[in-house]
């Protein structure tokens, strides 16, 4: 690992969710650096800029104005520079269609936003400390959706 911290990015248009997200990492006290973007366009602008530091884990909301999470996922997967980014879908809904589509597009894990702060912290810490290499190799549709 080039950095001594884990670089995390969240793209989410919902202000409350962004607040919960950053609060959770504040309380988790892990060695992380969190960057937050308000929508897909902002996220992709950042990722595509030369000065950007690519994240280790990208949390991607699906339902965003201007550019949806699915579009972002498509662009990232089409770009070989970004192949190493672990992508966690971070969505309110867990409809079969969304799970199926993002799995096929190559996302690494699907997280349904939990309804308690305690669970949120638990999920985020699990995801961040996950061995991605191991998870990606054994990835299948059954373990794609993160069980709470």
């Amino acid at each position, binding site marked *: 690992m080039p950095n001594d911290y884990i670089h995390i990015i969240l793209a989410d248009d*919902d202000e*409350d*969710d962004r607040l*919960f997200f950053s*609060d959770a990492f504040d309380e988790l006290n892990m060695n992380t650096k969190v960057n937050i973007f308000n929508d897909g366009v902002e996220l992709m602008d950042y990722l595509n800029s030369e000065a950007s530091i690519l994240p280790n884990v990208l949390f991607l909301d699906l*339902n965003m104005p201007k550019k949806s999470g699915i579009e972002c996922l498509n662009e990232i997967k089409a770009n070989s520079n970004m192949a190493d980014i672990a992508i966690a879908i971070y969505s*309110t*809904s867990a*409809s*079969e269609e969304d799970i199926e589509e993002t799995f096929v597009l190559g996302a690494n894990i699907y997280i349904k*936003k*939990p*309804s*308690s*702060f*305690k669970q*949120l912290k638990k999920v985020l810490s699990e995801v961040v400390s996950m061995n991605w290499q191991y998870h990606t190799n054994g990835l299948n549709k059954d373990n794609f959706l993160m069980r709470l």
Partner: protein
Amino acid sequence: MIKQVFSRSALFLRIVFLVSVFLILVIGGFTYRHISNLTNSTKQVVSTYKVNVELEQVISYLKDAENGHRNYILTKDTSHLEPYLSAREKVNESFAELKEIASHSEAQEGNLKTLSKYIDALFKNFTQTNAFVENGLTLTEEFKSNFFEEKIIMDSIRQKINEMIALENKLLKERQKQYQSNLQFTPLFLYLLLLFTLVLIIISYNRISNDFKNIKLFNNQLSIFKEATIQLETIGKHGNWVWHLDTNTFVFSDNLYQVLGEKPGGFNPTLENLIAFVHPDDKQKFATEMDKMMKVEDLPFIYFRIIKRDGTVRYIKGYGKLLVNGDGDKRIIGNITDISDEIENYLQLEERNLELEKNNAELSEFNYVASHDLQEPLRKIQTFISRLEEKEAKNFSSSGLQYLERINVSATRMRLLIDDLLQFSRTNKPDKEFVLTNLNELLENAKQDVAETITDKEALIRNDELPILSVIPFQIHQLFLNLLSNSLKYSKKDVAPIIKIAYSKINSKDDENLMKVPKRNYHKILFSDNGIGFEQQYADQIFELFNRLHNKQEYSGTGVGLSICKKIVDNHDGFIMAHGEPQLGATFTIYLPE
């Protein structure tokens, strides 16, 4: 079948006719021969008698001549010579006759010649004797010898004639004998032949009358069939047409005119007049299809529109097929049907389908709103509550904390409701794919889903080996899960739940629950528990949406789970039934068709 019967019969009749004609010809031939034989034989008898008569006459003439001659010698009166002279002439006449009659036998002809010589000699002798008498030399030796010679010749003639008569009789007898053998069997043979012919003719008559009866019968059926066809045409708005290609003439059925909005026979049945009804936009297509019909044996249906005289447009479906009959006549036989009502219904249906699709789309939209937009604020409320409870608990009074708790319970319940509703609407989805699935796996997965509760409640689940069936996997999984959850939820507080899952294969006629169902094999899966059960009178109600038998403070639940179960089983064309006894337990029976 009719055709076959008659062609066989026609062949039979033709053969019988030919045989009869032949036999009649044979009978005619034989009869002709027989009659000509009879005639011949009569002729021969007549000729024999004639010969004999003539011969007798010859001898009597000769006797006359001899007598006259002798009288002349005795009396020397020349008047006695008259019979002698006329005898000569008569003998000659008889001889001429005899020559003609006796020509049938060589022996007789020879005899006749000999006889003629004798007679010539006799008359020569007479003449000589007469000369002696005229000269008065009657007492000379020469005269005596001459006279004696006369007697000898006369004897020879008599003998010859007797001989000839005998021969003639013999010949007659021989021939009669020969004919007799020919004639003896002919009448019997002819009679038998005639009888046989008669039998043949009777058989033919029988056959013909039988055929006639059959034809009448078939005709009768045909006329019934024709009447039925006419009625069918009227009911179905059909019209029939026949196009005789050789003469380029058409025959239209009465109802064809009516389909076109005309009276039967209201216009000349020609192609031009038919095309005149076709909608201008479809004329080209119609003409092309008619052309094709002549070349190709079999065509798909053709569709076109017509405009009736009153201006209404009707949709027509047509079909035609080239038929060549046994005589090589080419005909296209076709039908048209007015399908405007069908099309109208179809259009209506399509419109309704579109409406339904729109409704469905709206429902999906609603699903999405429910799943996403409604959940989002709810989730945030819950998260904020959890934040409050964690971070701000010390700032609340005890009643404030209690309110917070009540808010949390309500929010949790709302979430449960939304989730269940989503689940329920998801079982409605049209993309149901049946996959051959091992139900044991689905049950195991369902057990996994409630593993925590099983552990908490120390529940015991015992199941039979389940079959492999063609099902919608996620739905059956949901069904098992809901039934397990149900049993776990409504367990007695102080008794560890025991859930038994039994499987058997049955036929609907053997099962009291399926008495009203058509005979069929079913897979029967029984979920029974030792929970709190329910009054049997509610057995049907519990499958209704939002129907609950207990208040929600006692048992959490939305009243959706069993409705989902019912829907899933319905989706599989199966049945689900509930049986409960308060404080003893509940049993849910599922029947899935084989």
